[in-house]
C-alpha cells in the first residue's frame, strides 16, 4: 500500500525528491550493511570464543598430561638366586609365585651401592625402584623357570618419586624435609645417571594395565575396556529403542493424552540429573533383578536409560525436519504408512539422528555420577574380560586418580583425560564422515 502511494508521489514530485529518497535509501543501506557486518562479526566471535575455550582446555591438559606417556626405568643386573627363589629346586609354579623377589631387587641394588647400610638406608634405597619390579621378575620366572640361576640385565620401572624427580616435578633446591626424596637418595640417583642406568621409555604400563596404587604401575586399559563394554551396551540399546520411539511418536502416534504423557516424560527424563539414574539402577537392576555390582552390563543399562531421552529428542527433531512432501509423495505412490516412513522418511533423518546419538554417547562416555551408585567407582586391578566382570570406566578412573595423594598421579590423570578425549575425537570424526555423506538442506 504505502509503497505504491510513495511511487505515485515520487512520479509527481520529480527527480529532486527521487534523488532525496535515494539518498535515504543509500543512507539506510549503509546502516543495514553495517548491521549486517556486525551481526556476522558476532557470529564469528562466538565461534572463535568457543574454539578458544577448547584450545585453552586442551592445551592445559596436554601440557600436564604428555609427560605421563614416558616413564623412567632403571637398568639392574638381577641375579635370580635359586637359593632365594626355589631352595628345594622343585620349580613348582606355586613356589615360584610366592618367592621373595623383593630380596633379589634389594640384592641387585646393594651391589651398585654397597655402602648403603642400616635398615633405614636400605629401605630408602629400595624406595627408588617401583613396587612392581619384583612382580616383573616374578612374571619372567613364572614364564620360563629355566631362568633361575642366571643373571639378567633388566629395565625395571623406577618408583613414582624418582620418576617425578627425573621429570622435574620434584625441586632439588628445596630443603630436604620438604622433598619426597632425601639428599642421600638424590645422590644415589645421580650415581645411577652417571652409570647410564636411568632411561626414559614409552610408558607401556599406562596403556596395557589395570589400576594400581603405585603410579608407575597404574594403567588405564582396564578402564578403557570397562568403558568400551558399557558403551556397546548403551549404543545397542539406546539407538534402536530411541529411534523406534521417535518414529512412533512422530509418525504414527495419535495426538492424545497418552502420547502427551509420553512426550512430557521424555523431555523430563532429559532433565533429570544423572545421579538419579544411578539411584534407579541401584533400585531396579541391582536390588530387583539381582544383577552383580560393578558390572559393565549394569553400567551400560543405566547409561542407556540416561541417554535414551537425548536420542529420542534429537531423532524426533531430525524426523520433523524431513518435509511433509516426501511422505505425501510416497503415500501418493501407494506406499503404506509404514513403507513411507521406513523407506523414505527415516533414511533421510538418519544423519540428524546420528548427531543426537553421538552427543548422547559422548555424554555417556564422560559420565561418572550414576556409576557411583552401582558400584563402579571402585579399585579394580584385573582388566575386565566380559560384560559381567567387575570394571570401572574412564571418567571414574580419572576421578579416582584425581583424588589420589601421590604426586605422580597428577600427570596420569591428565594422560587419562587425553585418552578419553582421543576416543571422543574419534567418535566425532566418524560422525562428521557420516554427516558429510548424508547431510542435505531442503
Amino acid at each position, binding site marked *: 500500500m504505502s509503497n505504491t502511494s510513495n511511487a505515485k508521489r515520487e512520479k509527481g514530485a520529480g527527480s529532486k525528491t527521487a534523488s532525496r529518497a535515494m539518498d535515504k535509501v543509500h543512507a539506510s543501506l549503509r546502516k543495514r550493511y553495517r548491521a549486517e557486518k556486525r551481526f556476522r562479526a558476532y557470529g564469528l566471535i562466538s565461534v572463535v570464543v568457543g574454539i578458544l575455550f577448547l584450545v585453552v582446555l586442551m592445551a592445559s591438559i596436554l601440557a600436564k598430561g604428555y609427560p605421563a606417556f614416558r616413564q623412567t626405568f632403571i637398568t639392574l643386573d638381577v641375579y635370580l638366586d635359586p637359593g632365594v627363589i626355589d631352595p628345594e629346586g622343585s620349580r613348582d609354579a606355586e613356589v615360584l609365585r610366592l618367592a621373595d623377589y623383593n630380596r633379589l631387587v634389594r640384592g641387585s641394588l646393594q651391589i651398585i651401592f654397597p655402602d648403603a647400610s642400616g635398615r633405614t638406608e636400605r629401605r630408602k634405597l629400595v624406595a627408588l625402584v617401583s613396587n612392581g619390579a619384583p612382580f616383573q621378575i616374578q612374571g619372567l620366572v613364572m614364564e620360563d623357570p629355566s631362568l633361575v640361576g642366571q643373571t639378567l640385565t633388566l629395565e625395571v620401572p623406577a618408583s613414582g618419586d624418582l620418576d617425578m624427580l627425573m621429570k622435574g616435578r620434584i625441586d632439588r633446591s628445596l630443603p630436604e624435609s620438604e622433598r619426597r626424596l632425601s639428599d642421600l637418595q638424590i645422590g644415589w640417583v645421580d650415581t645411577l645417571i652417571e652409570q647410564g642406568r636411568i632411561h626414559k621409555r614409552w610408558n607401556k604400563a599406562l596403556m596395557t594395565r589395570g589400576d594400581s596404587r603405585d603410579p608407575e604401575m597404574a594403567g588405564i586399559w582396564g578402564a578403557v575396556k570397562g568403558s568400551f563394554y558399557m558403551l556397546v551396551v548403551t549404543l545397542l540399546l539406546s539407538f534402536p529403542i530411541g529411534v523406534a520411539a521417535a518414529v512412533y511418536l512422530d509418525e504414527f502416534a495419535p495426538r492424545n493424552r497418552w502420547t502427551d504423557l509420553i512426550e512430557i516424560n521424555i523431555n523430563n527424563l532429559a532433565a533429570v540429573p544423572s545421579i538419579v539414574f544411578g539411584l534407579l539402577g541401584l533400585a531396579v537392576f541391582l536390588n530387583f533383578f539381582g544383577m552383580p*555390582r*560393578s558390572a559393565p*552390563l549394569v553400567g551400560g543399562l543405566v547409561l542407556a536409560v540416561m541417554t535414551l531421552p537425548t536420542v529420542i529428542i534429537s531423532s524426533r527433531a531430525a524426523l520433523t525436519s524431513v518435509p511433509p512432501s516426501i511422505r505425501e509423495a510416497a503415500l501418493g505412490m501407494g506406499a503404506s504408512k509404514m513403507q513411507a516412513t521406513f523407506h523414505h522418511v527415516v533414511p533421510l533423518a538418519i544423519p540428524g539422528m546420528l548427531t543426537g546419538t553421538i552427543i548422547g554417547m559422548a555424554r555417556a562416555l564422560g559420565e561418572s555420577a550414576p556409576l557411583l551408585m552401582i558400584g563402579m567407582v571402585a579399585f579394580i586391578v584385573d582388566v575386565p574380560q566380559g560384560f559381567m566382570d567387575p570394571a570401572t570406566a574412564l571418567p571414574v578412573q580419572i576421578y579416582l586418580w*584425581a583424588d*589420589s595423594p601421590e604426586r605422580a598421579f597428577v600427570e596420569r590423570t591428565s594422560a587419562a583425560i587425553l585418552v578419553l578425549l582421543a576416543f571422543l575425537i574419534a567418535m566425532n570424526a566418524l560422525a562428521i564422515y557420516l554427516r558429510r555423506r548424508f547431510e542435505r538442506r531442503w
Partner: protein
Amino acid sequence: MIKKSLTAAAVATLVMTGSVGAQSARDRIHIVGSSTVYPFATVVAENFGRSTSFKTPVIESTGSGGGLKLFCAGVGVEHPDVTNSSRRIKASEVELCASHGVNEIVEVKIGYDGIVMANDKKAPGYQLTRKDIFLALAKAVPNGAATGVDSMIANPYKTWKDVNPDLPDVKIEVLGPPPTSGTRDAFVELAMEGGCKSFEWIKALKKADKSAYKSVCHTVREDGAYIEAGENDNLIVQKLQANPNALGIFGFSFLDQNADKIKGNAIDGVIPTFDDIADGRYPVSRPLYFYVKAAHVGVIPGIPEYLAEFTSDKAWGPDGYLSDRGLIPMPETERGQFAKAAKSLQPLKLAAN
C-alpha cells in the same frame, strides 16, 4: 535399517543375559566403605592380589555410611564381605545388621589418620591452639572470651588476630570437609571440643547438660568463614595454593605427599609430623577401622589371607608399606591385639564402648 539394528540389539541383549547365568559365582573379595581408608585398603588389596593366587579384591569408595549400609544388607554373595570405616560402627547399625542376619562382625582397627590444618608454603605459619580453632570456627563463642561472662554470642571474629593477638591479621578462611564427612566429625570432636573445654563454665556444662555442651562445642559457623569444600583433598591442596590466606583441613597423607607446596600448622605447639602423630603428641588424630563379615569367611575365597596380609607387620607395622602412604601405625601391643582378633575372627561386642 531400523529392523536390523533392533535385531542386533535383541541378539546382544540375549548374549548378555546368557553370560549373566554363566558367571554369577563370586570369586573375589568385595570391599566397600570409607574414602579415607580407601587409599590404604587398596594398597593392601593390590599386594594381596600379587602375592597370592587369589584374585585382587574389588574396593568401592562409598563413604563409611554407604559402606555400612551395603555391608549390613545381609549375608550372601551379593553383599560385600568387608567394609572400611573412618569411624566406629554405631550400636544402631549393629542392630540393623543383626536384623538382616549379619550377626558376627569382626572389628579391625588399622591405625590412625592425622588431621592437619595446612596452608600455602609461602604464607606465614600459624601457632594455633585448640582454643583458637574453637573460637575461630564455632558458630557461637563465649561472650567476651577474656571477661569470662557465661553466655554465648554469634561468632564475631573476622580475622585470626581478633581471635588471638599473636596470630596474623588475616581473614579467617578455612576450607574443610562437609558435615557428612567423618573427617569433619573427628576434627570437630578433637580440635574444637578440645578448645571448647578450656572454658571452665563450658566444661562444667558437660556434667549438667550434655547435649547443650555438645551443641556449644560441635557447631561450626556457617557465615562463610568455614568453607565446605568437599572431600577431594587434592583439590583442597590446590585451592590452598591458589589462595595463600586460606587454611585447609585434611588427612595427613596429603600433607605428606605435598610437603613442597603446603605446610602443616602447629596445634598446641606440635607440628604434624609422622612421629609426633604416632606417639600421640599431635592432638588431632583419629582411628580407622574395617569390619569383616564372619559368615563369609571360608566361603568367599581369600578372606583370612586378606586379613593376614593387612595385619602383617610388613603392611601396618612402623616400617610397613602403609606407613609410606601416610597411615600412622598403632603401638605394638594394640597391633598384636587386633591381629589376634582378626585371626581368630573374634566377633565385635559393642558393650565395651
